[in-house]
């Protein structure tokens, strides 16, 4: 099972890319665990998560071709 992850704002500095493709991730909790393992700085950073363009606040099952977006808050004006 393959999922796509879109990365926004300054999170791209942590992940070094604006897109990732991962396999074998069942839900958003395990995705966060996996990302924190690969990019420890992410664990210390605030962002919100959307699955297929819907924001999620609780653990959400991921399916084949789910698109996850990670968006940090912006303060600039």
């Amino acid at each position, binding site marked *: 099972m393959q999922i796509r992850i879109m990365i*926004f704002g300054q999170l791209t500095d942590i992940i070094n890319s604006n897109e990732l493709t991962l396999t074998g991730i069942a839900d958003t909790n395990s995705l966060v665990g996996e990302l924190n393992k690969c990019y420890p700085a992410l664990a210390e*950073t605030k962002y*919100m998560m959307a699955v297929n363009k819907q*924001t999620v*606040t609780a653990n959400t099952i991921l399916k084949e071709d789910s698109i996850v*977006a990670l968006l940090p*808050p912006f303060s*600039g*004006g």
Partner: protein
Amino acid sequence: MEDKKLYERYQRQIILNEFGEAGQQKLLQCKVLVIGAGGLGCPVLQYLTAAGIGTIGIVDDDTVALNNLHRQVLYSVNDIGLSKAERAASVLQRLNPDINIIPFIQRLTVENAFAIIRSFDIIIDGTDNFSTRYMINDACVLLDKPLVYGAISQFEGQVTVFNCRKKIDEKTVNYRDLFPQPPKDDEVLNCAEAGVLGVLPGIIGTMMANETIKLITGIGEPLINRLLTYNALNNQIYELELTTREETRSLIPANEILFKQMDYEWLCASSASSFEIDGDAFDELLENETIDVIDVRELNEMPAVNEFYHQKIPLKQIGESVTNIKSDTVVVFCQSGKRSKQAAALLSGIFGTSKKVYSLKGGIENWKKQQQAQRS
């Protein structure tokens, strides 16, 4: 439209079928407050003035600097050192002398926010820091004002409309539904630190003006409960649906009096993790200091706690019960440490530096386990 000159000024938008004279009348009767007359505020102000919003308020206590001019297009080199709110008002009044422009040369604070925001119909957030953004959000929730929100970072921007419903029974989303707590001030860089391409606030600010005009005239589909992100490098637009969070309301002060006690700058300057203490630190506080301990769980939640004296104030009521908290040091706890963290953040916002507020890490369950382990 009776006034011929007015008709002529706005003729090109009045002839739009969806807009018409009725749309123009709505704009002329509307009062819009633009907070921040910087990168986002300049294009917002320029287009709303040109479009004929009847009353425009401009809040900004800052002065024009040379490094503002690449993106803050209302100002010129002659304005350097002068008040942004005042200069913007003067330039805009020349563009459209028929509307009412009110500059507020002051920083928005918990003291003046309610008085300023209350008399406007729609609020626009073009500020450049989290403490003001959270303060504006909370005030708009309490005053039930639609909030057009825009923010930028380097090459990307976000736009949305908060506190607004398409249907009467729809729940409204606000900024705290996206990000319940402000990030630490060193966690997210602002334009001054991270840089910004000059045209980006131009694009995002123009989008904010567009959303405002759609909201007022009732045309199209404003970004209510939807967040749009735009990337200036690849022109990618990504839109997502926003949803409410249950805990959001408990993070917003319950009323104007509590709002005025909030210390937003302090809230943004400190990290959420610094509120937490572990079981050992808690035991030490219990033994050596005069502290107020508060159980923020619902009243009948188990396990019961008999080991130390404490008050019971459920999370939902904690904002209204602050007068019961007397000591300079406060420890809040719940089952797992999650709700108490929210409570600690809320109380810290209210008390600022006057009290130290801690959340018991891992909750009472963990603490009881630890006590048992120490005994055996």
